[in-house]
C-alpha cells in the first residue's frame, strides 16, 4: 500500500520511487498514523508556498508540534515575518554575499590541504561539514575555536530517532545549550565595541523595540542551523550524483561554466531539503479530497522537483538544465534567505574539489546518512581520487 512516512529510515535511503507514486496516485496524501497531509506535485507545492494565507507557517514548519513559544523567522506569517525578514534580508543578496568568495575559497583550501596528496577524503567530515559552519560562524562573529562545538549541537538539534514523532531529549538539551551560548555571546558583545554584522543588526532591532530578546536569540538559532546543515548536504549529494553520472561529470569538466547550472540541477534532482510543513487555515479542497482546517500539510519540495508535469525527463540528472525555478530553496515569502550564500559556497566548494581530485570514486560501502524527516543527505561520503 502506498505510504509516505518521513520518520521511516527506509524512506531516507531512496524516497524517489515513493515520491513518483504520490504524485501519480495520491497528490493529496493523508498519513493517518500521524494525522498530516502531503502535497507532492510542483504546481500544488508552488501554489502553497505562495499562498501563506491558506498555508500558514505560524504553527511551525515541522510536522511535529513546535515547542518554542517565541516566533522565529521560519515559524511566522506576515506581519511578524515581514518585520523579521526585512531586518537582514538585504545582507543576503547575491552581490552582498559575493564579497565572501575569497574567504570561502581560502577556507576551502585550508580544509583540503591535509588531503591533497593522500588520494582519500571524506567529503562530509573532512570538508563539507566544516565549510558552511565556518562561514556562518564568521558571519555571526563566533570564535573559530567554537565551530566544532556549535556544529555538534546543531547536528543534534536536527536529528530524529526512527519512528519517533518529536525532537528527542538530546535535541532539546542541545537547543538549550545553543540558546545559552547565544545569550552569553550577546552579553560579551554588549560589553565590547560595536560590530557591523548580522547579530549587531539584530541587537539594534532589540534596542529599538522591533524584536524582543527572545526573538533575537531565536533568530540566531535559526541562522546557525540553516547555515550549517543544508549546504553540507548539498555538497555531499552533488559529489554523489556526479559519481553516479560520469557522463555529467565529464560534461562539467569539459565545460566548467556549466557549474552554476549543475548546482541548480543538483538542488532540483537531489536537494537536501525534502519537505517543509505548513498548517491549513481553512478547509482546502484539492484533487477530490479535503484537507481540514488546522491540519499540518507537508510540502514535498524534492518530490515536486521531479514532477514530469513540470520538467521534461524530470527523473534525469542533466547538468545543462539550469532549472532556476526549482523548489529546492522553497519559494514565496519563506524561500531560503541564505540561497545566494549556499550557491556561492557550493560553487567554490565544487571548484576546489574538482581541481584537487582527478578521477574519483565514492566508496559506496562507506556511505552513511543522516536521519531527519525534512533534510536528506550523507554524514559520510568517502572518496578515493587520483591526486
Amino acid at each position, binding site marked *: 500500500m502506498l505510504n509516505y512516512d518521513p520518520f521511516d529510515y527506509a524512506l531516507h535511503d531512496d524516497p524517489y520511487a515513493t515520491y513518483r507514486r504520490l504524485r501519480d496516485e495520491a497528490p493529496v496524501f493523508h498519513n493517518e498514523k500521524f494525522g498530516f497531509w502531503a502535497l507532492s506535485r510542483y504546481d500544488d507545492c508552488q501554489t502553497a508556498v505562495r499562498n501563506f494565507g491558506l498555508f500558514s507557517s505560524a504553527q511551525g514548519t515541522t510536522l511535529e508540534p513546535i515547542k518554542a513559544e517565541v516566533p522565529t523567522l521560519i515559524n511566522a506569517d506576515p506581519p511578524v515575518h515581514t518585520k523579521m525578514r526585512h531586518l537582514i*534580508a538585504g545582507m543576503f543578496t547575491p552581490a552582498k554575499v559575493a564579497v565572501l568568495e575569497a574567504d570561502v575559497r581560502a577556507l576551502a583550501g585550508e580544509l583540503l590541504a591535509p588531503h591533497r596528496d593522500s588520494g582519500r577524503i571524506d567529503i562530509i567530515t573532512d570538508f563539507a561539514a566544516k565549510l558552511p559552519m565556518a562561514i556562518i560562524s564568521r558571519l555571526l562573529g563566533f570564535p573559530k575555536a567554537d565551530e566544532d562545538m556549535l556544529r555538534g549541537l546543531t547536528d543534534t538539534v536536527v536529528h530524529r530517532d526512527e519512528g519517533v514523532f518529536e525532537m528527542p531529549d538530546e535535541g532539546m538539551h542541545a537547543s538549550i545549550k545553543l540558546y545559552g551560548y547565544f545569550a552569553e555571546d550577546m552579553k560579551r558583545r554588549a560589553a565590547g565595541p560595536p560590530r557591523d554584522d548580522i547579530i549587531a543588526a539584530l541587537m539594534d532591532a532589540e534596542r529599538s523595540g522591533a524584536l524582543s530578546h527572545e526573538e533575537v536569540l531565536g533568530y540566531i538559532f535559526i541562522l546557525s542551523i540553516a547555515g550549517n546543515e543544508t549546504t553540507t548536504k548539498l555538497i555531499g549529494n552533488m559529489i554523489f550524483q556526479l559519481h553516479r553520472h560520469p557522463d555529467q561529470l565529464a560534461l562539467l569538466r569539459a565545460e566548467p561554466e556549466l557549474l552554476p547550472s549543475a548546482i541548480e540541477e543538483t538542488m532540483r534532482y537531489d536537494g537536501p531539503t525534502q519537505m517543509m510543513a505548513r498548517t491549513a487555515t481553512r478547509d482546502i479542497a484539492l484533487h477530490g479530497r479535503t484537507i481540514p482546517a488546522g491540519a499540518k500539510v507537508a510540502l514535498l519540495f524534492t518530490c515536486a522537483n521531479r514532477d514530469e508535469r513540470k520538467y521534461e525527463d524530470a527523473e534525469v540528472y542533466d547538468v545543462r538544465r539550469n532549472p*532556476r*525555478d526549482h523548489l529546492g530553496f*522553497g*519559494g514565496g*515569502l519563506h*524561500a531560503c534567505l541564505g540561497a545566494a550564500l549556499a550557491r556561492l559556497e557550493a560553487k567554490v566548494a565544487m571548484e576546489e574539489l574538482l581541481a584537487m581530485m582527478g578521477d574519483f570514486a565514492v566508496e559506496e560501502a562507506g556511505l552513511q546518512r543522516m536521519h531527519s524527516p525534512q533534510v536528506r543527505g550523507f554524514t559520510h561520503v568517502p572518496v578515493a581520487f587520483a591526486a
Partner: protein
Amino acid sequence: MPKITYVQQDGEAVTADALPLMTLMETALMGGVDGIIGTCGGICSCATCHVWVAPEWVDRLPPMGQEEADMIEGLVHRRPESRLGCQVQVDEALDGLVVRVPPAE
C-alpha cells in the same frame, strides 16, 4: 493600509492591501496576484516579481539599486518602467499605486 493594484496578464486588476514593511512582491502574494511568483523570497536573485510601474508613478518610487538594475537588464520583457517587486518597499506614499504584470520570462 496602502492599496496596490496589479493588472494581471489576463487583464484582471487585483487590488491588495500592504501590511507594514511589505514590498510590492509580498503584497502581491498576499493578494494572490497571478504572475508574481517570488521564487527567491526577496533576495534579488530570480526576477519573478518583475512589474511595469504605471508611468505617472515611476518617479514617485524609491530609486533603484545596482543589483536590481542588473537583474532587470537580463530580462526579455524589460521596459524603462520596470521594477522588481521585492526591492520596492510599500509605504503610505504609494497608496493607490498601479503596476502591470509582464509576461513570464
